[in-house]
């Protein structure tokens, strides 16, 4: 038996909030330090010469294209902001979908 207290458990809300906070820090701040090298597929495509077919992206004109915010000059701010916006959009789209799909339960305790 260890001296760790057994009573306190991290609540689900706190757990979910902590996960979201980590995502925001990663996308908003840490992303600036990510490697700028081509990824595995891009590299192989360039090496083997099958990148010839690649076309411009239909959303290339999007204000968030390539993980920046158009009009924001500062690279750190632009990338970080786009990451935070992306986290928010994914959370709303995904969260909304999963909330709509969930099994409706009778509330076990009147909160």
């Amino acid at each position: 038996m260890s001296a760790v207290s057994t009573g306190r458990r991290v609540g689900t809300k706190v757990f979910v909030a902590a996960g979201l906070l980590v995502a925001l820090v990663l996308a908003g701040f840490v992303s600036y330090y990510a490697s700028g090298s081509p990824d595995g597929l891009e590299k192989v495509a360039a090496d083997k010469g099958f990148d010839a077919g690649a076309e411009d992206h239909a959303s290339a004109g999007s204000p968030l294209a390539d993980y920046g915010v158009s009009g924001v000059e500062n690279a750190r701010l632009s990338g970080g902001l786009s990451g935070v916006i992306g986290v928010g959009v994914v959370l709303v789209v995904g969260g909304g979908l999963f909330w709509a799909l969930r099994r409706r339960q009778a509330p076990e305790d009147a909160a």
Partner: protein
Amino acid sequence: MHVPDGFINAPVSVATGVVAAIGVGVALRGARRELDDATAPLAGVSAAFIFAAQMLNFPVAAGTSGHLLGGALAAILVGPYTGALVVAVVLFVQGLLFADGGLTALGTNITIMSLVTVLVGYGVFRAVLAVLPEKRVSVSVATFLGAVVSVPAAAVVFTGIYAIGGTTDIPLGSMLTAMVGVHLLIGLGEAVITTATVSSALAVRPDLVYGARGLRKPLQIIKVSDSQGAAA
């Protein structure tokens, strides 16, 4: 591994679109059984986390990088059906807003980065868990192996799709070797990130980790102990 427009020809892009649509349809049905009031927000945050993690390219070899795909991670955290939807939502937003992954290639991208990674990653995870003792460390080991295999598996399937519908004529053998080689390295990064994330969740709230639900839980107050020897 986001495939841009123009890599895969139109007919095969339509075909992968059909495969992706069927896969997402199956996932939508299955996710209803996995999601409840507690897990739905968790799935939403998992999607946000994977979006964030995919921005973090890590170097794997000279002049090459990779990033988390997240299929194995999502499936282990919130279940395979929901996990496939988690990655599909991320890919959808990336393609639509961030010009990352072509819109005509969305079917291809969902097929390789959502369906294949979940099927292979979660399949390996379950298979490994079945032969290991019912312990928390077994979940971490199975997580690592599922994640590490899922990435080269996606690379193999992409190469197969390219063999059928690629827009250039290149020797497929050397392409397969190159794709699998670099994605084995990326898979190691995937496994490290996935295992760290799952282990962190297990340490705090093991009951919220879908893949750990098979672990027998005593119905009394759980005593936290670090004993390696005797089973509690």
